[in-house]
């Protein structure tokens, strides 16, 4: 079974520029998550999708971050404009059901904002 795919793996941008990340979840997984992991910290949930509907986006900075999951499969996370403090690894995870043992993480996209 293929895992969660993410691209690009690395991205370097200047502050105030825009950037987009892509995630392809495990086939058949209805739930998709985007996390932000700042260096030295644990992952923090940004947004959770169930199919193509948003379940939880309470920690998404909506003035600059947006995410969509068209057709309930792939998802993109966008930052516009980026700030220095957005430098982090952006992790995508997917699951087929709720529970403590169900989320599978992708390798992440490492963003550096200069």
């Amino acid at each position, binding site marked *: 079974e293929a895992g969660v795919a993410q691209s690009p793996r690395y991205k370097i941008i200047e502050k105030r520029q825009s950037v987009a990340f892509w995630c392809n979840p495990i086939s058949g997984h209805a739930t998709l998550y985007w996390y932000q992991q700042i260096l030295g910290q*644990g992952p923090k*949930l940004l947004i959770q999708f169930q199919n193509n509907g948003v379940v939880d986006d309470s920690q998404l900075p909506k003035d600059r971050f947006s995410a969509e999951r068209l057709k309930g499969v792939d998802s993109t996370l966008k930052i516009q404009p980026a700030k220095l403090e957005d430098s982090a690894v952006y992790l995508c995870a997917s699951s087929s059901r709720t529970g403590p043992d169900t989320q599978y993480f992708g390798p992440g996209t490492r963003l550096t904002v200069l």
Partner: protein
Amino acid sequence: QKEVEQDPGPLSVPEGAIVSLNCTYSNSAFQYFMWYRQYSRKGPELLMYTYSSGNKEDGRFTAQVDKSSKYISLFIRDSQPSDSATYLCAMIAYSSASKIIFGSGTRLSIRP
């Protein structure tokens, strides 16, 4: 105060040693307690989880939960260089289904 506190380390031990990793938490609503392992430039992978209090063993790994003290531990026996990674504790409150709250992670290095 953070909901989940974890010593960032780094922790360096010789091969074969017993490793003890710990987290404390403040939210008494947490019911599920997990440990994730994260290798450099990889996503976290679930090692094991426990529900409520008690112990759970899986090979060289043992997870302990003490809800009265709001304290959880992961023990690694016969540690190997391949165990070198960052270990993240994580918790879910019963009411929030799958929303995971992570600790900041402990960097572990096993010296050959």
